[in-house]
């Protein structure tokens, strides 16, 4: 099976890989690059655990071929913290106890970051609809929504 030479950036770092045609971006991240922070919950785009950004757009990495990533800028949960400083969203998820098992957390964080970059002052309803593609079976979403709203307040400098 021919492999494709694919180059892109991950969280700003230039990366090159050889990728099988049918491999998804999720496969590439987890299996080739060992960036296992991005999770696989369904591989059919229904759970959001594999959320990443591609050129700033929020997508399910399970629904994109690795070869399509050529030349793109990929953002994953591993890129949220800068050095030893957590992102405000990460701090707020901890402060509000917005996770139980934590498997959906990376996807929620990446999706929430994409939301706040686009809409720094979302209503609760906007947060809920934006995150509707991220399934959480533990929390009932309550504390997640609170954490995102609070992070938005802090990030606005309010």
């Amino acid at each position, binding site marked *: 099976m021919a492999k*494709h030479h694919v180059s892109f950036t991950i969280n700003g770092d230039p990366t090159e890989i050889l990728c099988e*045609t*049918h491999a*998804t971006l999720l496969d590439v991240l987890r299996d080739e690059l060992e960036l296992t922070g991005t999770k696989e919950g369904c*591989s*059919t*785009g*229904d759970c*959001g655990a594999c*959320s990443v950004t*591609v050129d700033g*757009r*929020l*997508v*399910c990495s*399970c*629904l*994109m*071929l690795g*070869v*399509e990533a050529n030349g793109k800028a990929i953002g994953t949960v591993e890129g949220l913290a800068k050095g030893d400083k957590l992102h405000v969203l990460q701090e707020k998820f901890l402060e509000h106890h917005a996770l139980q098992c934590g498997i959906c957390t990376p996807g929620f964080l990446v*999706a929430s970051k*994409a*939301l706040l970059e686009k809409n720094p002052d979302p209503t609760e309803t906007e947060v809920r*609809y*934006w*995150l*509707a*593609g*991220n399934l959480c079976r533990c929390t009932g979403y309550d504390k997640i929504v609170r954490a995102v709203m609070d992070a938005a307040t802090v990030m606005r400098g309010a």
Partner: protein
Amino acid sequence: MRYEAPETLEAATALLAAEMGIARVLAGGTDLLVQMKTDMVDPALVVDLKRIGEMRTITKAVDGFHIGAAVSGAELKEQVELKQHWPGLVEAANLIGSTQIQGRATLGGNLCNASPAADSIPALIAANATVSIFGPKGRRQLAVEDVVLAPRKTALDKGEFVVSFHIPLRAKGMGDAYLRFIPRTEMDIAVVGAGIGLKTDPSGVITAARIGLGAVASRPLHVKAAGDALVGSKLDKAAVDKMVDAVRAACKPIDDKRGTIEFRIKVAGVIAARAAAIAYDRART
């Protein structure tokens, strides 16, 4: 499986036409990758159309909007002018899946996946959209309601693909809306969907109406009789009732895990009436 990402329409057609095995075009991939993952299809060739300029752009011309078939839902939503003209269409496109799906899913894919329940198709029907198709014999146009023939079956010939959608400009007194019924608030496939495009005269009388329905038959429907039922009215109860009857008469749904026949027929009328009210409001403002 071979992956190609041509940069011209001609190159894409040549690849698709030459493939002896199963060939699939890839735009957003939100249906194709699921089908590949679940072994519904095992293509020998995948042709990524996203490097073809015309397929990735939205232009506004005197005759209307030309929307590239590989423009994502998220990009569509950011087109302020399109949203002002056809809010119902943009809303329909944005109901396809989650925010994540919106980052990739396209109008072209939603149409060519040929699901009877595709959200954008009834709204495109309501907006009187046509598609521009490119293939080995060159370019041709088709009304959007004529593209899907049956579940997973389109009017496209081998080597053909949808390049763009053409949607007329909204004239004064026009309005559109799309509503669907799903059990949850998000993430479901439409159990029924209804898109309505209306034209009213300055007094508020409806002079033209187009009604598209999804998930109530083996393909999305343009229900002419339902639209005609509204013409000449100011969306009074009698006209709406007549429209609802026409909608329900056109429904030929199935019982499945998403809904029953009775439910779909009943709710198609309810949703169409609600969508008509929104479209009428938009037409009047």
